């Protein structure tokens, strides 16, 4: 290249710029949606045949350089692409059509379908709706938005997964988690793996016919997540950040010592309690302690705090004609509302798509995150159970007080407080708080320091701070999902596509308990536990798809096969006898103190599937699919099963005879399909495998957990859906109604059996469960006037279930689920719902004044209630049980409003559930029980009948309705108020758009009047106290539920 050429080029460039400068100008425009007049952020604008492009900001605004005669093409997923020829316009308002738009598509498994051709029950949420409200994770953003999808915040802990249930429980035993498919790849995790800011759209396949293409994995419903892709045009950047402050919603559920003494005072004064029979010296000293113990701290005030969340997300997208990309990174750091809780996550995504010539397409999606989750290392219920009569950590004043109290107590003949507590254990290097006379300020305070032997009925446990702070529990996760595809267009409309991908997840669960976590400081009770689990799921899939529109015929078909392999390997290392608390290292433990457990499991699955979709003239719609699945978990005789589905639809409004502006859409849909589920089955549940274990005489082969069952097979769920979609006044108002029935046959049940058989339960296929539900979805553009628009969506869903058959049985064995005999009996019987809670009906609580000594422990109640002898046989036993509750709500609903006035936007998301109950175990602990006993004359002959009124009574902790509480709620899940800055101002500093917002989650949350816990949505779904949680059949017991969180957020969205 010579100098001359360079110079010429330069001149030409300058000249050309000069030429353009004369003709091009900056065009300002807005893109809105026709249906609700809301701006569309992220819409793509390109100038045809140039490399110029732009993307709309959160306000739907864009700026682009144009010249007359050029053609702008405006597109957004789900909307019809629009072209505008430039003719000196300075401001351009582009209204994109959806709803009746012929091009709008919904994602279905292994493909898409035009929305007007859809025949299933598919709910769709757009990325902009997810982005419009501040949410820490995708599930939060979806809560209340979809009919038939119940998203329940079982825990307020940072990083905790909510329960997602789509329609009725598809399994009698096991979980309800739907299959999550991200960009066509079924991931092995949940929605936590997806950054909410990456989302383009979320589709939920609710009915069996839609989900049947996923066969056995689709029984709990399928959530299809589509992430953003890059678009041709200039690179755009987006930065989102927010900061939240959060706290628990409900306060002060437990009294302090001082408040308890006020209660004593009140009851004595009004004559409810007769304390004259008690030792007055002890009583006086006890009340003196309640009232005057210095530095009392309510455990609740210590445990809970203001938490915060800080979030940063940065993304960029763009592309050329042949390569598009979207890349994002995010960071989130949360400190929980309870001390020691936290969650920290880094995540990144890259979506890359490339065209290789005319025929080939390829792409790569990479999504990964690294997270660390710190959870309460000790149960919340047990931490809160400690009495708020002392400080958490001793002070000079409290030490002096307890020493003086001990002297006073001994002076009136009580045992020294140290009795039974002093000395610690021989193997402890640091016997903790061995005596109240060696306490130092800052030491943990325990109930026994206050004279639990005789003076009051306190806990012998260590104080709450020792329980929590001497333990540590966290989980770290490294997750990556890689998937790549190669697509070849054989002829026009016929494509072959192969997807190859892997999910890799590496988790470490860590726990330690130092010597002082045990009240005695015994090092035999210390522990250092680590479980390292590696899971991989490798999937390969090839599909052949055909899409063609021939005149009025719209045909699409897909056939494919898919293979998947799930491999889990885990090593759990449990150590004990920690030599000291300073350095925790397995190398410091003796070899005998370390136990290693390994796990090595493979699940394999083979599938073939096919589907035909057909539409005639946008009027008559048809879809049919078939999938054949094989799964290694089932018995050798029964591994393969077929899952067919068919659906029909009719767009009545497209008929020639239909001519109504008022009723602008009438669409009828009917579908039926069957799905299989593997439910709770583990890799080898159909085999009977001995567990090698160390025994005193060498290797022992322990009794297998499972009894071999070569006939163990798929549970089949056949579901029929009827739906109607209506649109009024040019679809300004829209109503969809769906009714479904679902029949589960060959239910996979983990049926309790006598332990004489060597196992507590065996896996079986028996019985039939029928469910049905009605779902309404309403959408409306309520008002549109000048700068003001107001749109709303509402939905309501009902679910009913009935067990119609249980093979040879009338009922499954009763299951008592709770903690140590507390909790209801769950009955599952033919004619009943799933998971009915049964127990004794109570009429009134036995007054606390009936206790021998009602002052003994703070928050004492009698612990007894009067109960009803239903069959009048003069005995209280399980024949007197009645149904006392059921957790599934009668209906649940959601409602969202979006308002916009000039630069302001407001969105509100309400959610509620009505008519479900929980069995709340916490009050059974909080209403103290230490040393409590009824007066001997209450029931002198101990026949279970109160002498003074002849009524039967029973302990609350036994199976009674005492623990049943209303789990209904109405919540304002989210309120967001945003302001978008004037674009002139913004562009002057080189930005495209800036929006600032404030948001509140759970600004109000109305709980049932008899609900006394922190979170009516909380459910205990882990095993404890010897009881085995078995999914929906034992659903509804609550224990130590982490509180509902209220948070306030300030956030910023910046595009440039």
């Amino acid at each position, binding site marked *: 290249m010579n100098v001359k050429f360079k110079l010429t080029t330069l001149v030409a460039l300058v000249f050309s710029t000069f030429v353009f400068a004369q003709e091009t100008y900056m065009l300002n425009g807005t893109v809105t949606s026709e249906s609700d007049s809301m701006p569309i952020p992220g819409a793509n604008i390109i100038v045809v045949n140039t490399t110029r492009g732009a993307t709309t900001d959160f306000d739907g605004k864009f700026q682009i350089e144009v010249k007359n005669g050029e053609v702008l093409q405006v597109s957004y997923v789900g909307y019809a692409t629009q072209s505008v020829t430039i003719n000196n316009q300075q401001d351009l308002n582009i209204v994109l059509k959806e709803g009746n738009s012929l091009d709008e598509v919904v994602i279905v498994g292994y493909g898409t379908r035009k929305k007007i051709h859809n025949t299933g029950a598919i709910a769709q949420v757009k990325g902009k709706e997810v982005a419009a409200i501040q949410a820490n994770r995708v599930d939060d953003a979806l809560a209340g938005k979809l009919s038939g999808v119940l998203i329940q915040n079982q825990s307020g802990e940072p990083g905790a997964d909510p329960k997602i249930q789509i329609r009725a429980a598809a399994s009698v035993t096991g979980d309800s988690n739907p299959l999550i498919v991200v960009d066509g790849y079924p991931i092995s995790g949940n929605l936590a793996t997806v950054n909410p800011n990456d989302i383009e759209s979320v589709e939920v396949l609710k009915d069996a016919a839609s989900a049947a293409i996923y066969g056995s994995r689709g029984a709990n419903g399928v959530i299809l997540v589509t992430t953003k892709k890059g678009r041709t045009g200039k690179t755009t950047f987006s930065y989102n950040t927010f900061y939240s402050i959060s706290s628990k919603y409900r306060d002060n559920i437990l009294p302090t010592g001082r408040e308890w003494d006020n209660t004593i005072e009140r009851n004595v004064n009004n004559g409810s309690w007769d304390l004259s029979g008690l030792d007055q010296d002890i009583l006086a000293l006890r009340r003196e302690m309640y009232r005057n113990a210095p530095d009392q701290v309510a455990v609740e005030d210590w445990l809970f705090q203001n938490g915060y969340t800080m979030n940063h997300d940065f993304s960029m997208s763009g592309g050329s004609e042949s390569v598009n990309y979207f890349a994002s990174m995010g960071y989130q750091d949360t400190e929980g509302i309870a001390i020691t809780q936290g969650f920290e996550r880094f995540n990144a995504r890259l979506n890359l798509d490339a065209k290789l010539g005319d025929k080939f397409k390829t792409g790569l999606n990479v999504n990964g995150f690294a997270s660390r989750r710190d959870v309460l290392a000790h149960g919340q219920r047990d931490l809160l159970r400690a009495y708020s009569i002392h400080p958490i950590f001793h002070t000079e004043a409290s030490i002096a007080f307890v020493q003086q109290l001990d002297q006073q107590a001994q002076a009136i003949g009580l045992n020294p407080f*140290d*009795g039974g507590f002093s000395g610690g254990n021989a193997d402890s290097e640091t016997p903790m708080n061995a005596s109240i006379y060696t306490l130092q300020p800052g030491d943990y305070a325990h109930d026994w320091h206050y004279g639990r*032997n005789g003076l009051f009925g306190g806990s012998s446990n260590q104080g709450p701070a020792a329980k929590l702070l001497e333990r540590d529990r966290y989980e770290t996760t490294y997750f990556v999902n890689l998937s790549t595809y190669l697509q*070849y267009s054989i002829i026009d409309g016929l494509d072959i596509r192969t997807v190859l991908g892997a999910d890799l997840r590496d988790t470490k669960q860590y726990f330690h308990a130092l010597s002082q976590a045990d009240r005695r400081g015994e090092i035999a009770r210390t522990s250092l536990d680590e479980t390292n689990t590696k899971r991989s799921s490798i999937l390969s899939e090839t599909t052949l798809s055909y899409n063609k529109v021939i005149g009025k015929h719209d045909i699409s078909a897909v056939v494919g096969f898919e293979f998947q392999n799930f491999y889990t390997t885990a090593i759990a290392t449990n150590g004990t006898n920690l030599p000291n608390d300073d350095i925790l290292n397995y190398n410091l433990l003796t070899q005998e103190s370390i136990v290693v457990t390994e796990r090595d499991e493979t699940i394999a699955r083979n599938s073939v599937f096919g589907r035909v979709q057909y539409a005639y003239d946008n009027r008559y719609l048809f879809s049919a699919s078939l999938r054949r699945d094989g799964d290694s978990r089932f018995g050798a005789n029964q591994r393969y099963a077929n899952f067919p589905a068919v659906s029909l639809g009719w767009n009545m409004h497209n008929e020639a005879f239909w001519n109504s502006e008022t009723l602008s859409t009438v669409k009828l849909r009917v579908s039926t399909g069957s799905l299989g589920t593997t439910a709770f089955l583990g890799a080898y549940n159909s085999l*009977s*495998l001995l567990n090698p274990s160390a025994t005193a005489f060498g290797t022992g082969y322990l009794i297998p957990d499972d009894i071999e069952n070569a006939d163990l097979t798929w549970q089949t769920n056949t579901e029929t859906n009827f739906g109607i979609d209506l649109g009024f006044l040019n679809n300004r108002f829209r109503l969809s109604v769906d009714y479904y029935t679902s029949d589960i046959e060959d239910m996979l049940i983990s049926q309790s059996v006598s*332990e004489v058989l060597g196992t507590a339960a065996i896996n079986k296929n028996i019985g039939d469960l029928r469910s049905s539900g009605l779902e309404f979805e309403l959408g409306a553009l309520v008002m549109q006037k000048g700068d003001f628009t107001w749109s709303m969506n509402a939905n309501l869903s009902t679910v009913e279930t009935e067990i119609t058959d249980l093979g040879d049985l009338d009922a499954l064995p009763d299951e*008592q689920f709770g903690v140590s005999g507390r909790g209801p009996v769950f009955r599952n019987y033919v004619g009943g719902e799933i998971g009915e809670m049964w127990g004794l009906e109570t009429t009134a609580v036995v007054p606390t004044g009936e206790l021998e000594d009602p002052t003994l422990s703070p928050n004492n109640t009698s612990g007894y209630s009067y109960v009803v002898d239903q069959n009048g046989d003069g005995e209280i036993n399980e024949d007197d049980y009645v149904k006392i509750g059921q957790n599934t709500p009668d209906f649940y609903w959601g409602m969202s409003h979006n308002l916009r006035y000039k630069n302001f936007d407001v969105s509100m998301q309400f959610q509620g559930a009505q008519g479900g109950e929980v069995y709340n175990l916490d009050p059974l602990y909080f209403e103290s029980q230490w*040393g409590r006993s009824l007066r001997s004359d209450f029931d002198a002959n101990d026949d279970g009948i109160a002498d003074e009124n002849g009524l039967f009574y029973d*302990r609350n902790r036994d199976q009674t309705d005492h623990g049943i509480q209303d789990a209904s709620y109405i919540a304002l899940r989210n309120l967001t108020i945003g302001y978008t800055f004037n674009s002139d101002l913004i562009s002057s500093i080189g930005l495209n758009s800036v929006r600032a917002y404030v948001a509140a989650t759970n600004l109000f949350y109305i709980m049932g009047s008899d609900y006394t816990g922190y979170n009516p949505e909380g459910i205990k779904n882990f095993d404890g106290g010897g009881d085995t949680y078995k999914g929906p059949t034992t659903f509804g017991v609550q224990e130590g539920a982490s509180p509902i969180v209220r948070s306030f957020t300030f956030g910023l969205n910046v595009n440039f």
Partner: protein
Amino acid sequence: MKKIVYLIVCSMLVLTACEDLDQAPDNIASSDSLTNFGGVLNAAYYYQQAAATPMAVMGDFRADNMEMREAPYTDFHTFNSNLTTSMGDQFFAPIYRNLYKSILSANNVIENSTDDTQIAEAKFLRALSYFKLVIVFGDVTVNLSAAPSTTDTSILVRQPKEEVYNTVIIPDLTDAIAVLDNSEISNGRASQLAAQALLGKVYATMGNYPNAEAFLGDVISNASSAGVTLVSDFSEVLDDGNSEIIFATQKSTTISDEYDFSEFTVWYGGFEDKALLPLNPDLITAFDDAGDTTRKDLTIDDDPTQLKSVKRNLGLESDWIEIRLSDVILLYAEAINENGSDTAANTLALLDDIRTRAGLGSLSGSATTQDEVRKAILDERRLELAFEGQRWFDLVRTGAVDAEMGQTINSNYYVFPIPISEINSSDGVITQNAGY
């Protein structure tokens, strides 16, 4: 070009590889692949471990040796149905579950093994399991199969305890006596002597004292040739592997058993929060009344700020002694007395070795009637075998519950409640004990 395209499209199909649905893990054994049943026999021993703590709590805390201090554990001291729900998970379900697992493992050995010694050991363990089940629960389900039917619930019907004694426990022990020798006794495995001792105890519990006398007498005469002798110092009677042990369930902290709660040493030692100062003052009185200072000092700490066992302060490694020579001698004396086989003086003289070791004089001559001798032996058992899980079962066997506990206790509460899950899961085929 066309070729390349063709190649790529073909490779797309090949990339999708079929999975093998016959999956089984490499690191676990399948039950039908076994040829040597030694490992299964080891499991039958292993499951006895989880029965130790429930036996300890029932034996000493239900009786007048020890006391629970915190609700709901104090339900052990109220003789009503409260125990059923509150203590089921922690005590009755684990012992029930593990003993039936020991039985299943034993059944597997008995059915499938070709080794006579293995079979005889399995029979001993099966008899031991059923004996514990019967004294704890009364009538119980009998399963003698390695693979019992999962559908036929009639096999679960509780069999009268006499039936269990006569058709299972006695025949199994008789078979074990015939096959086993005493070569492995010091290694902690089942032996002929252990089977004889257990059978003697079984007969005594059944009230069949003549047979008890015969078998217990055999033990006493065979003991020394089997290497079993009284240890010279009472402080060593609970030491692991001491010469007095006839059979003990081996415990070790490195072998995690299927009992997830506090171990018996923790309960006895006053280290369990639910039973601080667990010593029942009645036991202090019993030692003082007997003028027994040596064993008292080695058994209990009666300091008001301590009130706990020192005899059991041996840590979590400590084995659970099922039967030792002192127990056999005391039972033998009991049988002699019940049978009237010898004079009161001679009967009580049988206890001399035990009392001498405790620094006490002979009881010979201190009691004359059968009742007095019975009471003297019972008292001696209490002091000698305190904190070995014996007391409650001794009171029930000798009919001394009301007299010793100082209250009238409905005989329904001589046994313990069947785990509720058993009644639920068998749809009532397995019934609850009366009163619970």
